[in-house]
C-alpha cells in the first residue's frame, strides 16, 4: 500500500472534520476520495502531504510516516491543490523551470523537463506567455504539469476539475488517465460522482469524517442494489409526500425521489398507483441502472429514510 491511513482524526475548534478515517491505496492505482463540499477532502490531503498535523491516527505515504519523516514523504509526492498555485506574472515555461530548479534538476535539466511537459500538456504555443493570459483549463494543466516535474511516486490532486467547463474537464481527465501509464499513483478528491466513476479504480465515499462506503464504482453500484426508478416532482411538498409514502432516497436539489426497483413493469405500475391513490402528482418518470449518484444518495440519506 503506497498510501495508508489509520484512524485519522482532525478537528478545528468544535468542528470534527475527520473522525477516524481509514484509507488504503495500492501503488499504481487511481484512488478517488468522494464527498460534498466541506466533507474534509482538503483536510485529508493536507495531512497526507505533510501540510497539516492530524490530532490522532497514523498516516504513511510511500513507506514513510508523515509526522516522523515528512522530508522523505515530500521527496516522493507532489500536490496539486484545490486552487491553481501558479505565478500569474511568470510564463508557463518559467513556472515549470522554477519548480525544476527547486526539485534540484539543475538549470539545464529543469529547462529540458519544462520543454517535455509543455509538449505533453499541449502548452507549447502558450509557453512564453504570462500565465495571467491563460484560460482556467490551461492554468489547471500547467498546475498539473508543475506537479509532475520531479516524477513523483504519488500525486495528490485536490478537486482537479472543479470550476472547469466541460471541454477543459475532458482534457484534464485525459491528462490524468495518461499519468496512470507512467506508473504514478493518483490520489484525487472530487465532488463529482461521474469523475470518480470515469477515473478511479477505487473510490472511498467520505461522510461525517469517516469512510461511508468503498470499492470499485461497480461494487458501489451493486451495494445499492438493482435498477432505480427516478420520480421527478414539481414541488417540494409533492416530493415530501412521496418520500413519506415510498422507500427511496430524496434529492431535494433536483426534486427527485430515487426508488430501488427490480426493473419490472409491475413494480412501476404499483409505484405510480400508490402515488395516485394518495393524490401525489408525478411530473416525470425514468428508470436506469444505478449510478454513483444513487450510491451517494443512499449513503448520505438521513437515517429515517434509509431503505
Amino acid at each position, binding site marked *: 500500500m503506497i498510501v495508508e491511513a489509520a484512524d485519522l482524526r482532525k478537528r478545528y475548534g468544535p468542528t470534527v472534520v475527520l473522525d477516524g478515517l481509514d484509507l488504503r491505496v495500492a501503488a499504481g492505482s487511481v484512488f478517488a476520495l468522494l464527498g460534498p463540499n466541506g466533507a474534509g477532502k482538503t483536510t485529508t490531503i493536507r495531512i497526507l502531504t505533510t501540510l497539516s498535523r492530524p490530532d490522532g491516527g497514523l498516516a504513511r505515504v510511500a513507506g514513510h510516516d508523515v509526522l516522523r519523516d515528512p522530508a522523505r514523504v515530500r521527496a516522493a509526492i507532489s500536490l496539486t491543490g484545490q486552487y491553481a498555485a501558479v505565478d500569474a506574472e511568470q510564463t508557463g515555461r518559467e513556472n515549470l523551470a522554477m519548480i525544476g530548479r527547486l526539485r534540484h534538476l539543475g538549470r539545464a535539466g529543469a529547462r529540458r523537463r519544462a520543454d517535455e511537459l509543455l509538449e505533453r500538456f499541449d502548452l507549447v504555443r502558450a509557453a512564453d506567455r504570462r500565465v495571467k493570459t491563460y484560460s482556467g483549463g490551461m492554468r489547471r494543466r500547467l498546475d498539473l504539469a508543475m506537479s509532475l516535474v*520531479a516524477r513523483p511516486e504519488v500525486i495528490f490532486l485536490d478537486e482537479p476539475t472543479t470550476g472547469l467547463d466541460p471541454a477543459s474537464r475532458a482534457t484534464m481527465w485525459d491528462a490524468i488517465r495518461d499519468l496512470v501509464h507512467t506508473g504514478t499513483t493518483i490520489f484525487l478528491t472530487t465532488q463529482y460522482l461521474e469523475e470518480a466513476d470515469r477515473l478511479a479504480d477505487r473510490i472511498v465515499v467520505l461522510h461525517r469524517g469517516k469512510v461511508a462506503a468503498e470499492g470499485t464504482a461497480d461494487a458501489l453500484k451493486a451495494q445499492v442494489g438493482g435498477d432505480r426508478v427516478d420520480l421527478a416532482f414539481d414541488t417540494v411538498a409533492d416530493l415530501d409526500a412521496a418520500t413519506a409514502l415510498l422507500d427511496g432516497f430524496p434529492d431535494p436539489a433536483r426534486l427527485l425521489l430515487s426508488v430501488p426497483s427490480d426493473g419490472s413493469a409491475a413494480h412501476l405500475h404499483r409505484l405510480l398507483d400508490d402515488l395516485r391513490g394518495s393524490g401525489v402528482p408525478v411530473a416525470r418518470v425514468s428508470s436506469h441502472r444505478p449510478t454513483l449518484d444513487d450510491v451517494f444518495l443512499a449513503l448520505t440519506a438521513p437515517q429515517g429514510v434509509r431503505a
Partner: protein
Amino acid sequence: MSHALTDSVTLIGRSIRLSRRNVETLIMSILLPLLMMALFVFVFGGAINTGTAYVNYVVPGIILLCTGYGAASTAMSVTDDMSNGMVDRLRSMPVNSFALLTGHVVASVTRNALSTTIVVVAAVLMGFRPTAGLGGWLAAAGIVLLYVLALSWLAAGLGVVAKSVESASALSFFMLFLPYLSSAFVPPGTMPAVLRVISEHQPITPVIETVRGLLTGTPIGANAALALVWSGGLLVGSFVLATFLYRRRTAD
C-alpha cells in the same frame, strides 16, 4: 544543507522577476519618492530653516521614505503567496521553507537599492551637493542597507500574519508614516514636545542623522552607534519574528 542555498537563489530570482513585472508598483515606488522630494525641495523647503540648502537636508529622509514604500509592497507580495497556494505547493516539496521569505526580502532590498540610487541621482540634479568621500558613501550605503534589510524582514513578518493583501498594506502603514515623525523633513527642535520625544526616540532619526552626517558633514555624535543598535536590533528581532510567525501560520 547546500539545497537551502540553491533554493534561496531560485526563489530570489523568482521574486526579483515578479517585482520587475509588477510595473505599476515599481513605477509608483520610484515616482512617488521623486515627487515627494520635488515637493519638499521646491515647495515646502523654502519655509523650513535647516541651516543649509534644503535639498542637502532632505535626501536621507527621502531615501528612508522610499524604504517604507518598498516595505509595504514586500508585505503585500508575501501575503499574496501565503494565501494563493504557492506556500502550500512549496511546503509539500523538499524545499527549505524559509527560502520563500528570503527571496522576498532580497528582492525587497534590490528594489530599494534601485530606488535609492534613482533618488540620489535626481537629488544631485536638484542641487544636492554631498561632501562625502568614498568612505563616507560606503558607510552611508552600509547603514541604509542594514536598515532596509531590517525593515524588509519586518515587512515579511507583517506579510505572514496579514490575512489579505489589503490588510498587509494597512499593517505596513506605520512604516510610511514614521519618517514624518523623525528628523527626516524638519529638525525635531521645531516640533511640539510630545512629537519631539517620539522623533528623538525612534530608529529613523539616528539613521537619518548618521547618513546626513556621512554625506554632508553635519555632526553625527552618538547617532552612528544608536543607528547601528536600532537597525541591528530591529533586524534580529524582525528575522526571529518573521520566521516564528511563518512557522506558526503554516502549522495547523
